[in-house]
């Protein structure tokens, strides 16, 4: 009946076109996915390495750390220590998927189904991505960032720019707004705004102002602590935002650089929160599409077996005592949960009815899944949908490691009736970025005294900061703030555990 999409392993661009059309038909009609327009690009291994070192982005500003990553990846790739990904997909509109030229025709089909439809649907529909990223604007914004950094290097010197970017990169993980409330990100608008601001400065520049004598500063009335904190918008956990707005001695271009780094960090923030879901969605989608294509006779039995081989490798979950174990494989967990939801929706057991009354036996698999994909992130997804059956299947157990406990590591809960909820809660917590990243906030600035910036680290479960790294990051922070910076680690009962104080390094006089 239907024609085969391809025979054997070879493909050309017509084959890719046919494959994409077939996948699109299955994805849109049968799975009811809603995707950004696709753009598929075929690249070589070297270009893949290039993409690796610029966090997968097709264009990025220049910085030595990307060169370092490139050198590292290249060395391990050449020695055969590391394979390259089959694809990279970018959350943009149009959604760009990079395919490796080495892939066989079957792999290209898998990858197109996985990236161009699975990930693409997730990017477009998940609430986190909708809230925090601007798929339409990202490429233009990156282009702007690249040019802006380049212009800064021309005007202010490469070392100066590098110093600022180094510092911004060190603080990148704390340059994120975690709670919505501000208006949505519009990167195109950002770009225009930066341009306008610069233009305005140039237009109204008048060197005379510099010569006007300054009047005696107004007598400063002591403002209350509350008032001061309010004025500065404290407490503030977005360190880069705080520096951009309030650091006293940064040049405008430095603030703009911080802003760029901050926006890029924000853009990647949803990805780190949805690894399991994102990969689970994409894997589930490619599995459905491939199976369907095979059932329609458009993929031969041999090619389908090849697909099953790579699919199985991708969703392999080693056990905890296996040498290959390095935590939960997001592909395995995600895919297993999506399939489990499918099972619960179509043929639930009594246990499922008890645990998931809302979806058990609802029979509309794709409707339920699309709703899940749109409205959850890893933490809430696992907390809500990890079923007892799956916990038994993975034989999950929860370890509690208290260094104070002499007897050893306690097995706190296992996959039994008493433990299901606790195991599930713990696993969900493991995927909560709020728990993974250190909780650091700017709490106060000593405005009347030495302008010292005061940060608090709320220590959770006795886990403090690595000392050498913390000192280095604080050094960068102090260089940007240009006055002393103090970081105080406090535990839940406000007891001070450790205190760091770092002074800024003098700025070399060479660069004016």
């Amino acid at each position, binding site marked *: 009946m239907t024609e085969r999409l391809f025979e054997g392993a070879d493909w050309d661009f017509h084959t890719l076109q046919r494959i994409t059309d077939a996948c699109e038909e299955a994805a849109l009609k049968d799975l009811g996915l809603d995707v950004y327009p696709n753009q598929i690009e075929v690249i070589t291994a070297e270009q893949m390495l290039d993409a690796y070192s610029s966090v997968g982005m097709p264009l990025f500003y220049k910085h030595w750390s990307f060169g370092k990553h490139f050198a590292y990846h290249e060395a*391990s790739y050449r020695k055969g220590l590391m394979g390259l990904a089959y694809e990279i997909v970018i959350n943009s509109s149009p959604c760009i998927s990079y395919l490796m030229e080495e892939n066989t025709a079957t792999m290209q089909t898998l990858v197109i189904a996985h990236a161009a439809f699975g990930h693409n649907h997730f990017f477009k529909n998940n609430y986190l991505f909708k809230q925090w990223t601007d798929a339409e604007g990202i490429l233009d914004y990156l282009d702007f960032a690249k040019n802006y950094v380049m212009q800064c290097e021309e005007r202010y010197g490469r070392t100066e720019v590098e110093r600022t970017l180094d510092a911004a990169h060190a603080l990148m993980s704390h340059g994120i707004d975690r709670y919505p409330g501000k208006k949505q990100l519009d990167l195109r608008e950002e770009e225009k705004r930066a341009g306008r601001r610069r233009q305005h400065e140039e237009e109204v520049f008048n060197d005379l102002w510099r010569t006007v004598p300054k009047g005696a500063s107004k007598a400063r009335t002591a403002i209350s602590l509350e008032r001061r904190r309010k004025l500065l918008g404290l407490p503030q956990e977005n360190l880069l935002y705080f520096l951009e707005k309030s650091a006293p001695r940064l040049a405008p271009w430095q603030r703009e650089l911080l802003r760029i780094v901050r926006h890029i960090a924000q853009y990647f923030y949803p990805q780190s929160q949805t690894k399991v879901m994102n990969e689970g969605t994409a894997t589930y989608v490619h599995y459905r599409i491939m199976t369907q294509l095979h059932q329609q006779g458009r993929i031969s039995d041999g090619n389908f077996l090849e697909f099953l081989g790579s699919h199985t490798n991708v969703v392999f979950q080693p056990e905890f005592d296996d040498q290959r174990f390095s935590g939960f494989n997001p592909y395995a967990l995600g895919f297993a949960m999506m399939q489990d939801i499918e099972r619960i929706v179509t043929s639930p057991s009594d246990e499922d009815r008890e645990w998931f009354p809302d979806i058990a036996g609802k029979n509309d698999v794709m409707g339920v899944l699309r709703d899940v994909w749109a409205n959850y992130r890893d933490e809430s997804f696992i907390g809500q949908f990890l079923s007892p059956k799956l916990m038994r299947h993975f034989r999950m157990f929860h370890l509690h490691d208290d260094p104070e406990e002499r007897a050893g590591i306690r097995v706190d809960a296992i996959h039994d009736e008493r433990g299901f909820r606790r195991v599930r809660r713990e696993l969900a917590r493991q995927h909560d970025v709020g728990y993974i990243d250190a909780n650091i906030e700017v709490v106060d600035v000593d405005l009347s005294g030495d302008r010292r910036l005061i940060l608090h680290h709320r220590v959770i479960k006795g886990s403090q900061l690595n000392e050498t790294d913390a000192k280095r990051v604080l050094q960068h922070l102090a260089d940007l703030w240009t006055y002393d910076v103090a970081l105080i680690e406090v535990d839940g009962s406000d007891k001070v555990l450790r205190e760091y104080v770092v002074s800024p390094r003098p700025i070399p006089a060479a660069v004016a």
Partner: protein
Amino acid sequence: MAIHIIDRRLNPGGKSLENRQRFLRRAKSLVQGAVKKTSQERDIKDVLEGGEVTIPLDGMHEPRFRREGGTRDMVLPGNKKFIEGDYLQRSGQGSAKDSGPGEGDSEDAFRFVLSRDEFVDLFLDDLELPDLAKRKIAQTESEGIQRAGYTTSGSPANISVSRTVKLALARRIALKRPSKEEIDELEAAIAACTDEDERVELVALLEKLKAKSRRIPFIDPLDIRYRRYEKVPRPVAQAVMFCLMDVSGSMSEHMKDLAKRFYMLLYVFLKRRYKHVEIVFIRHTDRAEEVDEQTFFYGPASGGTLVSSALQAMYEIVRERFDPSDWNIYAAQASDGDNSYSDGELTGMLLTDKILPTCQFFAYLEVGESGGSAFDLSDSSLWTLYDRLRNSGAPLSMRKVSERSEIFPVFHDLFQRRETAQEKAAP
């Protein structure tokens, strides 16, 4: 919905080149140290290869706020026998390992591959060469121009007349263009003809032939051929480099390292000038022997010092294997300056009579300990001898060296003699 499929494979590669250069620039001192270390371990001939270097990650570390320690909770898959409330023994370290690529403490050293050019550049940098010299060494070999067939286009100056005429002739024959003789013959026949009918016929034929010869030009633009030239690397002659070294007990590791660097630099220099460079290692105590590189630098040896033995050995090798008319001979001798007193006469004679006339360049490097103040006290016996020879006009280049940066000036003489060397190098 339109789907765009784009082939990016032909896009220019090396998008990360700029970032890579920035990284190298930033890590310069570290990479330079690594290159220095690598080049010490390498054979002289491999100095020009690129290669993997390892630098400590410390200076290139990108810090982040990271948490560690404290109470840990984890959910793991694959429970086999545990039940709630069991206690597991701690096994020294945590069982779960976490290592991100290029991040964290898990890696204290950072390995990556330098290309050949990057490596040589850093190697030369380390020797503190003046920029001009660096450029001379690093410049690629000159290109010559060579005839390479014919082409249909070119400058009028390059028209190949013979080839053009030959092609025109072939074309005229193929198209049966009447030759001048044929027409002359016909005209003669017409002149001689008496019969009116036949004459009319002949005149018609003549007209036809003339028309044809007008239609088919003698030389058509199609026939024109130009000489084609191609750039080829200029053929370069072969060179042999003799490394002579005193390996008696008084030579320390530092001295040998200085000597090795000097040989490496000489090799780099020769390699840029000559297609084929052989290296001969001769080490000597009171006897001389030809050895491989490993033995040369690291093999144990003991005994007195007779420099003449090495010169004699070199002379014999030259006579046997390297005819001075085919080979450019370079010799570099490294020593701490000791020589047996009685040997001086013989050494001087061998050098002036047999060695120097065959050599392009003879360098003597007197190596000393780092700091090397002892040098100023008095000249060594060998130095005194060579100095005397040089003053009497022998083409010797000699230098005292106790630090790496002092090696380069030895090459000044070599660069100054470049012109004469080139003449001899040309075939």
